């Protein structure tokens, strides 16, 4: 196995279990309590490594969000064909007629 000199340069990252739980909530991922610590260790390892970015001088450098160097292209506003609804609905986990079925969003007493 090759020696990994890069990992040695990582710094410890102070990620807490509470932060992991918070990020899981933001990410809409149900993370069971007994998995939080393992996940915390793995994420802290990666975050410790990416801390190398701090050492790079970026004074006055513009962020680069994409390598694509052409400006926004506008299409002519012409109607085209749509994908068939019936075929799209075949992939839905639950349907009612030609609609997606979802759990009740509003509580019973929230109606007016």
């Amino acid at each position, binding site marked *: 196995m090759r020696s990994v000199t*890069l*990992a040695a340069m990582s710094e410890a990252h102070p990620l807490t279990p509470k932060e992991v739980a918070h990020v899981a909530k933001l*990410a809409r991922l*149900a993370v069971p309590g007994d998995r939080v610590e393992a996940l915390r260790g793995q994420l802290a390892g*990666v975050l410790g490594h*990416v*801390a190398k970015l701090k050492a790079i001088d970026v004074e006055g450098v513009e962020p680069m969000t994409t*390598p694509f160097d052409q400006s926004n292209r506008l299409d002519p506003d012409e109607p085209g064909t749509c994908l068939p609804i019936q075929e799209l609905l075949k*992939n*839905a986990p639950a349907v009612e007629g030609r609609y997606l079925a979802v759990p009740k969003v509003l509580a019973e007493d929230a109606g007016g």
Partner: protein
Amino acid sequence: MNLSDATEIRDAVRSRKVKATEVVSSLVARAKAANAKLNAFHEILEEDAMRQAAAVDAAVAAGRDPGPMAGVPVAVKDNIATHEGHTTCSSRMLENYRSPFDATCVERLRAAGAVVMGKTNLDEFAMGSSSEHCAWGPVRNPWDQARVPGGSSGGSAAAAAAAICGVALGSDTGGSIRQPASLCGCVGFKPTYGRVSRYGLVAFGSSLDQIGPLARTVRDAALTYAVMAGADPRDSTSAQRPVEDPLQDLERPIEGLRVGVPTQYMSDANDPRVNTLIQSSLDRLRGAGASIVPVELPLTDVGISTYYVIAPAEASANLARFDGIRYGHRAPARAGQSLDDLYAESRAQGFGPEVQRRIMLGTYVLSAGYYDAYYGRALKVRRRIKAEFDRAFETCDVIAGPASPTPAFRPGELSDPLQMYLCDVYTVNTNIAGIPGVSVPIGFVEDGGTRLPVGLHLQAPAMADARLLRAARMVESLHASACVSAPI
């Protein structure tokens, strides 16, 4: 006839020496037999492939032009939408998903007479470098089944290397075409960002993703690319400028080719046997008239840090669409389940551990209080990495080095996520800068009685795809003994 040479198949079908249906049935039979060992394909679409092949034969019989890829069976990575079969991204999340449309590249390949023969396995949602993280079981390396094929386009690389498809399609976000091509011993080409439409590619890192071919030869990779490339109204980031024909001058060596070799690429951290092979390939290039130019890419190392902020950030946004509502896995209903619970439970059940890790990482670096320190800073470093390439290309035509610091490793060997990420050190910056890259087989290292392939990685400036393929063809011609299919 060589059934894994796309150009030969095309010529034979067009000149009526063989029928497309004969090509497809032989290759499908071979793929089925090999797949039991390799797990390269999730699905082999025999019926659909035979129907497409029959249409090609009918065109030939009627005297119509069957297209520049007539009868060539194509293995499509399973994160690229095909109307036939499933498009699962090797994820439980999309286990039953069937795309209502073809990706633009698939549509163009079909129009050129190519035949979609099946869908290949990958690291779930293209996140990985070993094709171990696949919901349908790990893919195995055709040179040594006790090794990984690399990833994430491991199924496509294994299929191309084992000669069980005409050509294969992959996607490359940080090396996912080039690294498995190197580990499996086939040609893997990632075009310039924007050159091939991403419409129908399930998005991972939208500013990094690019579709490209994996093939037995540079010529076949160039042919496939030529058919797929070009502006697409359905992808606003597809480049509008005309595509330079990569086949036109492919066989003509570039006179006075200047090959830049970054001192950072020949690192002591690489497997020394890899460095030896790379060095000997550079010597052959020099012998063939190229000049080897030392160049500096001091930010090479920082690429991993930059990439593992930007790619997860984009992934966390892209994968937000998988919520169990419109398509994909939905967690069973239970009493008291809120809509938020349904999202969180569906996603936790549908996504595997690596995908969840990357979503968490991306969410963290984009969250309030950390955005500037991680994501904002990574985008600035990204511009510096791009500038570094621009400067290097002032003194050379292509940049050469290893595609992977090691040959194929064993499953489980890189169980720590960070160790796995470090495999991508020589490929991620290509995507960060948006330039094209290709891996070409240059030889083998002996390891425990087996031969493991090694590829030379070449990079060129944005939009110099034709030049890059010409240089790759030169390398290929200097390493004929390395360009052989795996003994499966």
